[in-house]
C-alpha cells in the first residue's frame, strides 16, 4: 500500500476513536448527580446556597445526550470548554502545559532509549557473564524503585543536604523574572530551546540545573524496561541462523552483534520506545508533581482529582490522538528497520 493512503486511512480511524473515548468518559461523569457536579464549582460552604443557580447555569440537570451534544457542538466550533484546574480554556491549557512536559521528554527519552539499547545488547552479548549480572541487578533495582521515593531522596540530598545545589521547579526566581521580561522572547516555552534561541547562557544553565534531577528520576526507573526487552530480543536474534552464517563467513564479532543481530532485535524495542515517548509526552504525573515541574501530567491528574470534566475530556482527546500518531510513526519506522515489513499488509 502507498504510504500516503496508509497514513490517511490511519488518521481517519482517529474519528471513531476520539468519539468513543469522549462518550465513554462523559458517560462515567454522568454517574455523579447534578448536585455533586455543581458542588465542584463551589470552593467553600459559604457558596452552597447557590447550588440550584449553578445547576441551572451549567445545565447540569439536562439529559445525557443534551449535555454531550452541547459539549461536542462546542468542540466542533473549536471550543473545548473551560479548565477550572488550569484557569484557562482547555485548548490553551494543553498548549500551556505541553512544553514543560516536552522539555522533560526531550531530555529523558534519548537517554532512556540509547542507554537501554546499549546496555541491553551488551548484556545479551555477554550472557551469564559479570556484565550481564551487573545490568540485571541494576535493572531490578531501578525498575522496582518507586518514583516518588527516588525523587524525594534526590531532592533531600541535592537540594537539602547540599543546600540549594539542584533546586526543584523550572527556573530560579531571578531567572524567571528575566524570562518573563521583554528582554527575552519565548518562542517555544521550552526553556532550554528558548535560551539557545535567545543566546542566553544564564537561562540555559539554570534550566539545565533544574532538569537534572527529574531526568535522572525518569531515566533510572524506565531504562531498565528497555534494557531487559533489548536483552531478550537480542538473545533471540543471536540464536538465529543468519547470525551463525555471519559468524561462519568469518565476520568480526562486533560486526555480527552490531549490524546483523542488533538491527533485527530492534523491532520490539521501537514499539516500546514509541510508547515510552508517548507515555512521557502525555505527562509523568509523579515526577512532575515531586519536582514542581508542572506539565500536562500534573494538569491531567489535578483535573481528574477535581473532576474538572472539560479538562479530563480534553486530555483524553489529546491522549488518544497522541497514541494513534505515535503508533503510526512506529509502524512507519518498522519499514525502515526491517524492509520485510510492508505497510497495510503482512510480513512477507
Amino acid at each position: 500500500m502507498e504510504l500516503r493512503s496508509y497514513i490517511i486511512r490511519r488518521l481517519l480511524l482517529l474519528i471513531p476513536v476520539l468519539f468513543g473515548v469522549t462518550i465513554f468518559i462523559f458517560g462515567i461523569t454522568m454517574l455523579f448527580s447534578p448536585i455533586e457536579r455543581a458542588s465542584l464549582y463551589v470552593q467553600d460552604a459559604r457558596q452552597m446556597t447557590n447550588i440550584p443557580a449553578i445547576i441551572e447555569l451549567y445545565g447540569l440537570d439536562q439529559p445525557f445526550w443534551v449535555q454531550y451534544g452541547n459539549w461536542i457542538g462546542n468542540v466542533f466550533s473549536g471550543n473545548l470548554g473551560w479548565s477550572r484546574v488550569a484557569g484557562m480554556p482547555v485548548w490553551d491549557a494543553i498548549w500551556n502545559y505541553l512544553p514543560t512536559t516536552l522539555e522533560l521528554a526531550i531530555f529523558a527519552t534519548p537517554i532512556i532509549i540509547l542507554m537501554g539499547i546499549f546496555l541491553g545488547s551488551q548484556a545479551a552479548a555477554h550472557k551469564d557473564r559479570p556484565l550481564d549480572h551487573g545490568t540485571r541487578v541494576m535493572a531490578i533495582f531501578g525498575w522496582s524503585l518507586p518514583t516518588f521515593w527516588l525523587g524525594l531522596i534526590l531532592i533531600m540530598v541535592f537540594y537539602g543536604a547540599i543546600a540549594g545545589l539542584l533546586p526543584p521547579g523550572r527556573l530560579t526566581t531571578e531567572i524567571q523574572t528575566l524570562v518573563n521580561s521583554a528582554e527575552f522572547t519565548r518562542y517555544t516555552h521550552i526553556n532550554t530551546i528558548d535560551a539557545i534561541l535567545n543566546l542566553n547562557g544564564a537561562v540555559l544553565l539554570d534550566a539545565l540545573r533544574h532538569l537534572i534531577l527529574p531526568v535522572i528520576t525518569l531515566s533510572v526507573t524506565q531504562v531498565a524496561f528497555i534494557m531487559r526487552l533489548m536483552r531478550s530480543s537480542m538473545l533471540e536474534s543471536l540464536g538465529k541462523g543468519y547470525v551463525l552464517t555471519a559468524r561462519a563467513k568469518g565476520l568480526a564479532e562486533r560486526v555480527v552483534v552490531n549490524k546483523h543481530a542488533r538491527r533485527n532485535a530492534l523491532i520490539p524495542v521501537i514499539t516500546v520506545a514509541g510508547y515510552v515517548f508517548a507515555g512521557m509526552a502525555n505527562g509523568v504525573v509523579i515526577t512532575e508533581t515531586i519536582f514542581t515541574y508542572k506539565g500536562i501530567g500534573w494538569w491531567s491528574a489535578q483535573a481528574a482529582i477535581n473532576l474538572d470534566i472539560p479538562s479530563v475530556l480534553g486530555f483524553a482527546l489529546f491522549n488518544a490522538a497522541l497514541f494513534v500518531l505515535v503508533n503510526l510513526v512506529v509502524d512507519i519506522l518498522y519499514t525502515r528497520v526491517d524492509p520485510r515489513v510492508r505497510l497495510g499488509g503482512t510480513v512477507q
Partner: protein
Amino acid sequence: MTRKFLLSFVAIMVTLAMVIPGCGSETPPELPSTYIGSGALDGDGIPVDFFSDIDVRKAFCYAFDYDTYISDALNGQGVQRGSPVVEGLYGYDPGTPMYSYCLTEAVDHMQDAWSGDAWDKGFKFTLLYNAGNLPRKTACEMVSEAWAGIGNTYAEEPEKFQVGVQALAWPTILGKIFGTRDMPMFQIGWLPDYPHADNFIVPFMHSQGTFSYFQGYGDSTLDAQIAAAFQDTNPTTQQAKYDALQQQYYDDAPGIVLAQPIARRYFTQHISGFYYNPVESSYAGRVLDLSKSDAGGDIPYLHPGYFTFETIGDIDSLDPAWIYDTASGMQVGMIYEQLLYYDGNSTDTFQPLLATAWSFCQTDLTYHFTIREGVTFHEGGNLTPADVEYTFERAMCQDRPGGPVWMFFQPLMGGDVWGYDDTDFAAINASVEVDGNDVVFTLSSAAWELPFLQILSGQWACIVDKEWCIDQGDWDGTESGIAAVLHPQNAGDTVLYDLTNGTGPWKLNTWTHSDQISLDKNTSYWGGAVPFDHVVTKVVDEWTNRRLSLLNGDADLVYVPATRFDEMETEESKLKVYKDLPSLSIDAFFFNMIIGGPPS
C-alpha cells in the same frame, strides 16, 4: 480488524445509550437513607427524626472527648468553643457554656430520650466523612468508639450502640448534605465573610441558614431573635442579645461544636514586620508592612528585593468582583486597594486607604466616603469618585453565581435581595451615588453600620478604574450593557480575570497559571515606600520542596499545614515563628433532625 473494531465500538455506544440516561437521576429508595439501618428504633437502626429529640443530641454532645480531639486530630492546635461564634468575631461571648466529655451525663440523657426506648433498644447508624480529611475521620471514629464504650460499660451489651464510619469523596458528601440530606450527622466548617457574629449565627441557627436549613433546625421565633440582635444599634443591648443566642445554641445542642483552629506562620529570620489579623486573607499578613534585611543566622540571605511565598493551590481570578477565596484575595489585595482597611490586628476598627474619611447618618441611612485625591492607577488614570461608584455597580451588575457580591446587595437593598435577579438597575444605580468628592451609599438598615465597613475591607471591594475598564471591553456603565456581563460562567469570562489595573503597591507582571504569580513594585505608589521590588507567589504542592525552600532561603514564607508543625519544631531556632494565632473558623458536627429532608 477495522470492522471488528467498529462493531465493538457500536456495541459500546448502544450499551452506554441504554445505561447512561438512567444514571444521575436518583431513584427514591424505600427508606430516605441507607445510613440509618432499619429506619426504626428497634436496635437495628434509627428513625428519620431520631435527632429531633433534644436528649439524644445532648447525649451525643456529652459523649464527645473534646480534649482528645484537639490533641490528636488537631495536633493541639485548637480551642473548644461553646457555640459557632468564635473568639475574634464582633459579638463573641466568652461566657457561653461548653459541653464537657462526661459519659454518665451522656447515659442519663440517652436514658431519657424517646421515653427510654433509645436506651432500651439501642441504635445503629453510619457516619460519613470526606476521604483524606484526617481530623474529620478522627472525630467520626471518636463518636463511634465512645458509644461502643458506653454499650460495653453502662449497658453491658457491647453491640447495643453501633455507629459505623465510612469515607466518601468530598463532592459526594456535599451532595448528601445539601441534596439528598440522607446523612444522620454531617461535619463541615465555616469561614467568615466579615467578622461579625451574624455571619456565623445565620448559617448555623437561622431556619433558612446554610447549614441549619439542611439539618432542620431553627424556627420563626429564633429567626426573629436573630434579626432583633442584628438590628439592635445599641452595642450593649446588642451584645446581650448575641450572648443569649450563643446560650441558645448550647441549650438546643443542634450540633457538636468542635474547635476553633489555631494557626502558625513560619518566616525566615530575614523578614520582619508581621502581625496577625484573623480576617486578613493574605497568609503573609499585610505584605506592605513586611520588610526584608540580612539578619544573619543559619538561613542564607538570598534573593534581595524579592518576597517569595510558596503555597498550595492556584488563585481563581484577579477580578475583585469574582474572588471569594483567600488565595485570590491575597493577590488582589496587593494589586488593588479598598476604601478602607482593618487597623492593625483589629476586626472592628479601620484605617483609611482610598477614602480619607467616612461618616454614617442614622436618619437617612447614608454612608459618606471622601475619596483620596492625587492617587493614580497603574495604567495612569486618576482615581475619582466615579471610579468608586462604577466599582460597586459593576460588581452588582456582574453578580456571578456563588460569588461574594451578595455582600453588597444585602446591606444596600436588604430584605430578600441577594443578587441582581432580585432587583433592577434603577435600584443599583440609586444605592451608590457620587456627591462632589464623596461617594454616598444608601443602606437598607442602620444595623449595617459596622458590618458594611467590614465588607468594604474585603478584597471584593477593591476599586477599579472606570474609563480603563470600559476601554478594555468591560461593562459600559449603562443598563443596556448589563446583559453582556451578567452572571459570567467561567472565571475567564470577565475582563478583569487576568488584566489588572489597581492603585496598590504592586502591579501584575506575570500570572503563570497554577505555577506562579509575580508582581512588580508600583514605583509611583501614593502611600510611600514599597518594601519589595518583586512579590512572587509560587504554587508548590510537595511539602518537602516547600520546607527545603524555606530552610535554604529560596522562599521567605511557606505554607505549613498543621500536620507538619511537629516536624518544624527542630527548625524553629533558624526561623521566625508566630504561634497561637486563632483562625476565625469553626468545624462542627450537625445533627440531621429530619433525615432525607422534610416530606415533600
